[in-house]
């Protein structure tokens, strides 16, 4: 098991962010509704994975893998229920994203914008790749995976993630 310096866990625990329950429900809901409604008018925004960014944010801020699993599963299943594919596809992928994001948050300073940028990029790529693997393996769908396009979209999503996370930081309960 990895040994951390004395006081490390206490420091990390003190950095756990808390949110209003209404914000925890409303923010993912708004992110999902955004994905349902806005791309009708601005087609290019359909590539913005706001539910994923919100999953990553809450998992990073709570710093608890268990909480990350629940965030990811809940947001993913809600997203699945409005999609045309079987329930569980986004649920599984986002459960993993939530778990890994929360695990990462125990080892990195996730308040740093550069770290958030890198994590946003990494988790978007991981999300798209793992979704593609699941669609092929479990549903037998012959979807195309284009690494270059996914990298470009990952960059765009991570660029959006930084100011979005800064905005969401304002909703943290202080004190």
């Amino acid at each position, binding site marked *: 098991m990895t040994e951390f310096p004395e006081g490390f866990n206490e420091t990390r625990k003190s950095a756990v962010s808390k949110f209003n329950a209404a914000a925890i429900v409303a923010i993912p809901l708004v992110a*999902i*509704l955004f*994905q*349902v*409604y806005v*791309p*009708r008018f601005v087609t290019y925004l*359909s*590539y*913005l*994975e706001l*539910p994923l960014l919100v999953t990553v944010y809450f998992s990073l801020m709570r710093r608890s*893998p*268990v909480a990350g*699993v*629940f965030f990811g*599963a809940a947001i993913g*299943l*809600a*997203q*699945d*229920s*409005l*999609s*045309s*594919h*079987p*329930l*569980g*596809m*986004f*649920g*599984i992928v986002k*459960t*993993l994203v939530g*778990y890994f994001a929360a*695990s990462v948050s125990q080892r990195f300073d996730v308040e740093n914008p550069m770290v958030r940028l890198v994590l946003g990029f990494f988790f978007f790529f991981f999300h*798209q790749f793992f979704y593609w693997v699941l669609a092929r393996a*479990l*549903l037998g*769908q*012959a*979807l*195309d995976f284009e690494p270059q396009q996914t990298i470009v*979209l990952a960059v765009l999503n991570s660029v959006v993630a930084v100011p979005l996370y800064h905005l969401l930081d304002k909703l943290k309960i202080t004190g």
Partner: protein
Amino acid sequence: MEFLLNRYRNLTVLVVAILAQLVLLAYQVKSNQEVRLIRIWAVSAVTPMARIIETGRGGTSRFFSDYFVLLDVREENKRMKREIDRIQMENQFLRAELSTADRARALAIFQTRSPSKTIAAHIIGNTTGSGAKVVIADRGTNAGIERSMAVITPEGIVGKVVSVYPTASYVLLITDPTFAAGVISQKNRVHGTLKGQGHSTVKVDYVQNEEKVDAGEWFYTSGDDRIFPKGLPVGEATVVRQGKSNKDIYLTPSGFQNGLEEVLIIVEGVHAPIPDAPVQNQQVHLLGPPPAEANAPVVTLPTQAGTTDADRLIETYRKIGEAQKHVYGERGSGAPNYNAAPAETTARKPVEPKPSDPVKKPPTP
């Protein structure tokens, strides 16, 4: 055991969550059924919200354009757009009727042909997932919509209904990679399978290299898939080239030409013949009528009379139908007797100048 679970609590929770969702997924895939209750809740919760947002957006937009920019022009424009759509459908029907009228099958087609019954729906949103090609229409089981019903616009096919809920339904667009439909080319009657590509063009697959398809040729639904009635326009072939074993044919779908806000869901489809003439939807520049000459005799044209052979033929058929109390498009009513003389001839006779009218002589050079 308890010690292990406590020690690996995080991992245990992760594994349990993943396994639970895998079981859920496996159940749906194995039984080919979805967890309908959850979806009904989700769609029913989102539909009113989407409607409210749409109403708010539409109201705000209308307010600014109606009162500050164009006053009532927007309403007028919408009315005219609806009228144009209706006339386009009617025009397409009449063109098809005329093009087949002088063929041996004309009577049989007239007997079997009637316009499909449709329900208008409004597209209120997309489904989730980046780059999704499934949209949400605001008509569901309450309006009589069923799975696998065809969705069209006056310009062509748009997609098919893949899931239905009480207040909404999911429409899989023809551009989705999982979409497929039977199509037939207009000129050479070549059959193929339409497939989505995930972007704006669609592909016609399974057409042998030996078959003849020209660029610019129109494709129509063939009715083979039992979803789309035969004879609906699909799109124009923009790329036609030889492939490995099959031709590579790419179409520009015609159904999305005017955006995708309002669609028609076919609840009772009726197959139609493939029209011989291509769809006439290109803009044509027409000059205004020439100005009246100062000393020209005043000639009053009879109203409702056609100016072309086609117009006169339509008018003759209409008269025959009226004389025999036949309603075109009504199912099971057969065809009228076209050999019977109409009640009155509608072919426009040349207008003879009255003796009292001034006779204008041609100018002498």
